[in-house]
């Protein structure tokens, strides 16, 4: 070159260091060729990382010497420019130098591709497309550079030969030297060795959805992301190379201009690189530190392990473990004798890393366990565990729309009750909770039961469990595993539990649902035939008719649901779409629920689907549960046409098989009385619910001194809403009207909230008066009896009609019949209605009457209609001929009534 050789011979320059680094690149590259397998690049690299610390170390040296070589070459170039040297090089040399810059990048990029991990595979595509975009020869150039899809042979050849030789030639031509200075050589070695020991070269775990190019290309990736026509990027590269050329060989002004432009470009590029490295996550989406998943999507990229020359396991142990998903995983080397998994979750197939994260290539406990997910399946980590791309991505997305996660209805109703919004049917989400009186009330008393509430302690699902994401339903400990974990919880040193893993499977039992669903509407306990009392634990009678739940709540025996009696469980009716959500947001349970009684107990012809038509999820579940499914016909739901995979249909007859226990039942058709026109608006549950729990007279106030709990953050706090409950009753539910798609249905309802709320105690606003609400809620009691309730229990019953308990009597005086009602409870001063009433006797009630917009008590007209039949029932038995006939034409029966029959007059005295 231009400078006298002696000038630089004894001086350490960036160029000298680059040369030393280049020599190390060559040496380590040759060594690395031994363990590297070009046919299985990813497997061979992960294997050497797990099993061969020295190879790993050499790989790191190869990596770091190359990265430093790039940096120092660029610095060297910058140095030349700064010192105003090198201008006016002969065009040939100038050209080769500019090309040299490109070749350095190509050599490094091919090295990056040779990892064969997720990053590399995508980078390969991008490189291929960009090269293809070069006019005329693009396609051939791309094929000549990358070779056949799936093969790394040609890339390897270019990496170790084409580009390397080219670089060597240019370097020698440029520096006129073969060997760097000895001191540089030694210094470079020391630094490289240290860095290579401390920081391993990257290897993508092939699970994390974020993919990025090598660090020096991330700025380019950011640019590409803005370009719909990435061909422009080629012009950019060309432009840069031309600038480098002019900087080297151009006339003074042109050279100066080129250098300036290059400098500005470099600064901008560094900025883009920072953005690409630290502010781009999955799908190249903008993400900033502190945002959800930031660590996983961004920082995970920098995960690097220190080489441990004394791994925590023996070589033989490591050699025994299989490749998992194409890679060697160090986790299974230590955790090699773990029992309890289902086939699909066998660690020999999916490893530990797929669920538990951590570092699959680290070889000692601490590094391997860094950022590990102790309890995968919590909604906060599903994206990194159950929901990763190869596993259950769709469900982990859907589950966030399920009501069990959003609690939309619960929140909206509570806010409405507190007077904070008008419409109880607004869609909302637990993530939108703020600090209003209602929201605080929810946090103190209600929202512990949502799927997002994380499971934090190992162990089986119990009565006390709440939330836990996927685990809430799918976690099962067998006896051995239960014992092991219990032993560990007693004595930390007992680690047998590490060998007995719980199973994550489809055996969702009623116990999984129990924790949350034994509260509020209490469908779990209702279903099993237990009714909560107001007794204290110490008052529990010594009788098998009583049961203690969670150590404090006393339940009393009531008739169980007929389905439970038969041995059915929750999941025998409730399918995966209704439970885990179907991707849509719903306001309330009745909106999300897909299955209706009439799907199984259908009149007439069933609606069916065949096994060929099943969606993947249903088909997979069906096959897992019942084995072969071909040629099978299933019932489908009326509402959303999902298959009921545990049903079988043959010539209009249907059977149900219980999912966990395999019992088979013939599905009975509805009785004739159900189909009578008089009852066409009456839902099945209105008649067949044997009882429902109800609670009246409850008061809510905020006590600033009460030690409370924030169920969202799971932290204790001072000051809490407190609920003072009234009386719990188990009785036939009241009935009401739900307007549904222009139809009026008669449904069971329970006192949703008859309560007073002292808002002022929370807000301290003078004008916040005591709120009184008398709201009933639609209920699905889950206390089905095969025999429906009696005629009189609706038509002559004050509770059913919504008046509350009391004496409802039909009296005939002076030839005039009149219904009268004498309530059992005192009138509530707030609205003058008896404490337990929903509506007044022969009164209309409007305004906020229920926890839904479309549910209301019977109007006066409707009450009269029902009581008119009740009038007949005062003399005629329900099963009498005349009453049975009346079911199909009541008007006709009325017209032909005997003179002895006295119909009521409705005017009030």
């Amino acid at each position, binding site marked *: 070159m231009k400078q006298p050789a002696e000038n630089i011979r004894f001086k350490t320059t960036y160029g000298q260091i680059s040369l030393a680094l280049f020599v190390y690149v060559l040496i380590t590259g040759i060594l690395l060729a031994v363990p590297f397998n070009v046919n299985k690049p990813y497997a061979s690299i992960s294997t050497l990382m797990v099993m061969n610390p020295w190879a790993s170390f050499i790989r790191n040296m190869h990596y770091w010497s190359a990265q430093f070589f790039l940096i120092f070459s660029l610095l060297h170039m910058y140095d030349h420019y700064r010192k105003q040297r090198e201008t006016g090089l002969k065009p040939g040399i100038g050209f080769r130098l500019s090309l040299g810059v490109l070749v350095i990048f190509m050599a490094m990029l091919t090295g990056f591709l040779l990892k064969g991990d997720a990053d590399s595979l995508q980078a390969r*595509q991008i490189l291929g497309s*960009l090269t293809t975009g070069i006019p005329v020869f693009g396609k051939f150039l791309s094929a*000549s550079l990358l070779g056949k*899809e799936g093969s790394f042979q040609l890339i390897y050849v270019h990496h170790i030969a084409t580009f390397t030789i080219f670089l060597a030639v240019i370097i020698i031509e440029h520096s006129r030297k073969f060997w760097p200075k000895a001191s540089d050589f030694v210094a470079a070695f020391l630094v490289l060795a240290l860095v290579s020991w401390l920081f391993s070269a990257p290897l993508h775990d092939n699970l994390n959805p974020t993919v990025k190019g090598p660090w020096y290309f991330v700025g380019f990736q950011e640019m590409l992301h803005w370009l719909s026509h990435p061909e422009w990027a080629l012009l950019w590269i060309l432009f840069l190379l031309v600038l480098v050329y002019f900087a080297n060989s151009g006339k003074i002004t042109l050279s100066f201009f080129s250098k300036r432009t290059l400098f500005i470009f470099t600064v901008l590029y560094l900025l883009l690189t920072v953005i690409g490295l630290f502010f781009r996550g999955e799908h190249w989406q903008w993400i900033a530190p502190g945002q959800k998943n930031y660590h996983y999507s961004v920082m995970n990229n920098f995960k690097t392990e220190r080489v441990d020359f004394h791994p925590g396991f023996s070589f033989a142990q490591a050699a025994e473990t299989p490749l998992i998903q194409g890679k060697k995983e160090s986790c299974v080397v230590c955790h090699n004798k773990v029992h309890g998994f289902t086939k699909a979750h066998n660690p020999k197939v999916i490893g530990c890393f797929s669920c538990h994260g951590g570092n699959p290539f680290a070889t000692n406990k601490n590094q391997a366990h860094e950022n590990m997910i102790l309890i995968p399946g919590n909604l906060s980590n599903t994206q990194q565990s159950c929901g990763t791309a190869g596993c259950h991505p769709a469900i982990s997305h859907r589950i966030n729309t399920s009501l069990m996660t959003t609690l939309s209805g619960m929140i909206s109703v509570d806010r409405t009750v507190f007077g904070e919004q008008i419409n109880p049917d607004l869609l909302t989400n637990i993530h939108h909770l703020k600090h209003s009186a209602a929201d605080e009330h929810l946090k103190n008393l209600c929202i512990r039961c949502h799927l997002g509430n994380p499971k934090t302690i190992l162990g089986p699902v119990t009565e006390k469990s709440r939330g836990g994401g996927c685990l809430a339903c799918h976690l099962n400990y067998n006896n051995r595993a239960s014992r092991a974990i219990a032993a560990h919880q007693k004595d930390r040193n007992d680690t047998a539990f590490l060998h007995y893993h719980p199973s994550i499977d489809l055996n969702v039992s009623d116990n999984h649902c129990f924790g949350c669903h034994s509260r509020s509407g209490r469908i779990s306990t209702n279903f099993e035939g237990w009714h909560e009392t107001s007794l204290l634990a110490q008052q529990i009678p010594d009788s098998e008719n009583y049961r203690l739940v969670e150590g404090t709540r006393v339940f009393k025996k009531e008739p169980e649901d007929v389905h439970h009696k038969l041995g059915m469980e929750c999941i025998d009716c409730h399918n995966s779409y209704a439970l885990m959500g179907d991707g849509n947001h719903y306001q309330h349970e009745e909106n999300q629920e897909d299955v209706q009684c009439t799907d199984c107990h259908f009149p007439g012809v069933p609606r069916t689907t065949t096994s060929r038509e099943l969606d993947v999820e249903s088909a997979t579940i069906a096959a897992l549960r019942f084995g072969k499914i071909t040629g099978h016909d299933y019932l489908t739901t009326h509402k959303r046409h999902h298959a009921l995979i545990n049903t079988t249909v043959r010539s209009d007859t249907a059977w149900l098989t219980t999912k966990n226990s395999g019992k088979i039942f013939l599905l009975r058709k509805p009785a004739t009385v159900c189909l009578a026109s008089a009852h066409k608006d009456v839902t099945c549950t209105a008649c067949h619910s044997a009882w429902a729990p109800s609670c009246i007279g409850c008061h809510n106030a905020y006590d600033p001194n009460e030690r409370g709990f924030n169920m969202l953050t799971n932290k204790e706090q001072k000051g809490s809403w407190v609920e003072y409950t009234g009386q719990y009753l188990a009785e036939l539910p009241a009935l009401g009207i739900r307007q549904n798609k222009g139809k009026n249905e008669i449904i069971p309802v329970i006192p949703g909230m008859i309560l007073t709320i002292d808002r002022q105690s929370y807000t301290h606003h003078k004008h916040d008066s005591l709120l009184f609400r008398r709201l009933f809620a639609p209920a699905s009691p889950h206390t089905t009896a095969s025999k429906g309730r009696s005629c009189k229990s609706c038509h002559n019953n004050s509770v059913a009609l919504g008046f509350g308990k009391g004496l409802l009597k039909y009296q005939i005086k002076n030839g005039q019949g009149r219904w009268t009602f004498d309530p059992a409870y005192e009138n509530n001063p707030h609205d003058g209605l008896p404490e337990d009433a929903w509506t007044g006797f022969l009164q209309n009630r409007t305004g906020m009457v229920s926890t839904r917009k479309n549910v209301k008590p019977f109007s006066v007209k409707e009450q009269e209609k029902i009581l008119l039949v009740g009038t007949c029932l005062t003399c005629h038995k329900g099963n009498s001929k005349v009453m049975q006939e009346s079911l199909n034409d009541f008007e006709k029966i009325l017209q032909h009534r005997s003179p002895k029959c006295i119909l009521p007059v409705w005017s009030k005295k």
Partner: protein
Amino acid sequence: MTLKRFSRRKFLQLLATGIGVSLVYFWDKMMENALLVASRKKIVFPLTRKIVSFYRDYLVINQNHNIKVLSSHCTHLGCIINKEENGKLICPCHGSEFDLKGNAVKGPAYKPLHSYPFKEDNNDRRIIVQPTSS
């Protein structure tokens, strides 16, 4: 003398250029055949119920028996699309999104995914694709 030297140099330059051009020509011809050889393969997929099945270079979309075979290569820069979320195919590299028909719905990509003609073999429940170059 000058004339002679000049023409000799010119001749050598010409010769070198000629050799260069012919090497490029050989390369061009070789590649033509090489690519042709590579594209002759026909590809068979099982016909499954999955709405989106991901294969390395292909996506088989089955929406209520409305089947489509799309290239899994994003039309922006060719990255392999390996994720479907909410009925959208999302490219991991720069976040382009496509609907299940293959149309680009979010940039940087704007061209639809290449769609391959295929034959459906209903007896064996499989799909046969004879790729033309995309």
